């Protein structure tokens, strides 16, 4: 049934063309193209310093590129003020690496910030209930609600950040290394959570990660960043067929092989998720 499935038009949610980013002399991206399709979980991988986070920051308009065009939901995001492009901002949620929680607000209040900002008409009772179930859905214990970010562990901060990113029921979710620094059990639970949210909300997910298990477990396609560009986008079997040294090393190195074993059989494109239900 079509309910909650993103419209099947193949218009990409994110369209990046000819992106060029430089820091002084250093060129991070040059002529980078990338499409993110509606309803998919796109994993973005690449060695340290290949500009994965910079790519995300460019897409969400925090890093003005030297050249190129970026469209999210068909709208340009380059050079927009914080108060502009509100329609896009209502439709995306972003989880930064460290959670980026507002330190003077409790977890529940953090979740309420985007709700209050974009929907000032919501009544207090409903706001509080929404914050409540978002906190629990993100995998936090209910007693985490009144805690301040300083009182949380790293993993809890990420979950609280996710709760805030999901506050507006976004269509597009950016995750910057969501499982980095989590223990394997916590990381697996976070993968599960991401997949389950993707299923319930019909999300498109842009996921930066180093975690091979995450790639095998939940990503529909993987984009590989190297040589200042996206050198390949595809399912893992498709990438494995390519003859690029970094890709081969990445997926066929000892860690890559272990992740394959653990995820046997790897996800196939279009396979319906049946987890957690």
């Amino acid at each position, binding site marked *: *049934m079509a*309910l*909650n*499935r993103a*419209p099947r038009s193949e218009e990409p949610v994110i369209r990046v063309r000819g992106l060029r980013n430089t820091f002084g002399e250093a060129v991070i991206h040059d002529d980078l193209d990338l499409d993110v399709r509606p309803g998919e979980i796109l994993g973005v991988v690449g060695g340290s310093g290949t500009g994965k986070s910079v790519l995300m920051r460019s897409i969400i308009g925090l890093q003005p590129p030297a050249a190129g065009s970026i469209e999210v939901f068909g709208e340009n995001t380059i050079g927009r003020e914080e108060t502009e492009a509100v329609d896009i901002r*209502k439709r995306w949620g972003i989880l930064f690496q460290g959670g980026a929680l507002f*330190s003077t607000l*409790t977890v*529940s*209040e953090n979740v*309420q910030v985007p*709700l209050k900002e974009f*929907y000032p008409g919501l*009544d207090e009772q*409903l706001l*509080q*209930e*929404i*914050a*409540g*179930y*978002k*906190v*629990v*859905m993100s995998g936090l214990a*209910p*007693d*985490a*609600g*009144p805690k301040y970010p*300083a009182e949380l562990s790293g993993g809890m901060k990420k979950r609280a950040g996710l709760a805030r990113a*999901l506050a*507006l*029921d976004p269509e597009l979710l950016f995750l910057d290394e969501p499982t980095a620094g989590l223990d394997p059990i916590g990381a697996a639970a976070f993968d599960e959570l991401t997949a*389950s949210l993707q*299923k*319930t*909300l*019909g999300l498109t997910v842009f996921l930066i990660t180093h975690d091979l298990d995450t790639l095998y477990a939940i990503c529909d396609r993987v984009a590989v960043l190297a040589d200042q560009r996206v050198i390949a986008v595809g399912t893992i079997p498709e990438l494995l067929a390519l003859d690029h040294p970094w890709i081969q090393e990445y997926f066929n190195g000892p860690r890559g092989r272990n992740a394959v074993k653990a995820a046997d059989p790897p996800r196939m494109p279009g396979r319906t998720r049946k987890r957690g*239900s």
Partner: protein
Amino acid sequence: MMSAHADFSRADTGGTLSFTGDLSLARIGDLPARLAAVSDDVKTLDLSQIDRIDTVGAWVIHRFARDHGATVEGLGEDAQYLFDQVAAAEQPVALRDPPQDPFQRVVGEVGDAVVQAGHTLYGLLGFLGATIIAFANVALHPRRFRFNATVHRFEVVGVSALGIIGLMSFLIGIVIAQQGAVQLRQFGAEIFTINLVGRITLRELGVLMTAIMVAGRSGSAFAAQIGTMKLTEEIDAMRTIGVSPIEALVLPRTISVVLMMPLLGFYSSLVGIIGGCLLCWVALDIPPITFVQKIREVVPLTDLWVGLIKAPVFGAIIAIAGCYQGMLVENDAEQVGHRTTTAVVQAIFLVIVVDAFFAVFFEQIGWL
């Protein structure tokens, strides 16, 4: 594509509410309020006609169904999954902890502050002790003394501060002379302006203003540097490879401030006197040569000693307070700022308290 607002209607036959439109945060409008107005018996909620549902819509429906004991029907597979997830997430989550009774809170905070102040003083004394022990250790094993680090601090604490301390002292010398001259003129005693400037800058103001400036420049920097190192676990790393952070970080800083303070204090007094001299020349027609002669007559050498004895003590207070607060930083970047502020406030406060004790002491031993 804009979908229709969320809406519901009621079949005449009673117990069923049929929902239509987009049950999502953006389109839900006043649906929650209108649902709240439905008071009589509802048995079934029919969701088969809706276009879309998100967690907010699911929550509103779930809440209504729960309160009325109604059942929810007509959801597709995915939507039902979402609905179940939201319903399963229902648990009481507080926004923040309930506020305390104001009276209790104020009393509690005052008590906390007193206990905290006691702890801080105790900790500061302990830290001073640890620094002295480290000093003794280094004196016994001079090869462990970090000569380069200390000399580097001389520059940062001392030489770099010359400009700002000089300017400040010069201006203060002028202000004191000018204010003194205005008052003393009423008795025809302008000449005593020289006594005023000479004695007050050497005894009190030179060293005190220098201490305040050094606390602001260097004490705060010590707290921020050591606090940041604490945060990035550099201090822990040092300990594990057998380097005492007190010897490596605190001692060079403390020694450099203790040695630089008398020099800076003397310099400050001197520049202050020059400022006063200039004003006397311009405003009171006292030529510099007379000013210097008079200064030598009226300012006893003990005034210089008073300043020079106080200065290293003030320096030790500033360095210890800064380093101690830096060492107290834990977990959280916000604490670095907080501790830095505390270090400066504490240093200036303690310097002024100790200065008061010195004033009484020097008076008692007859250095008037």
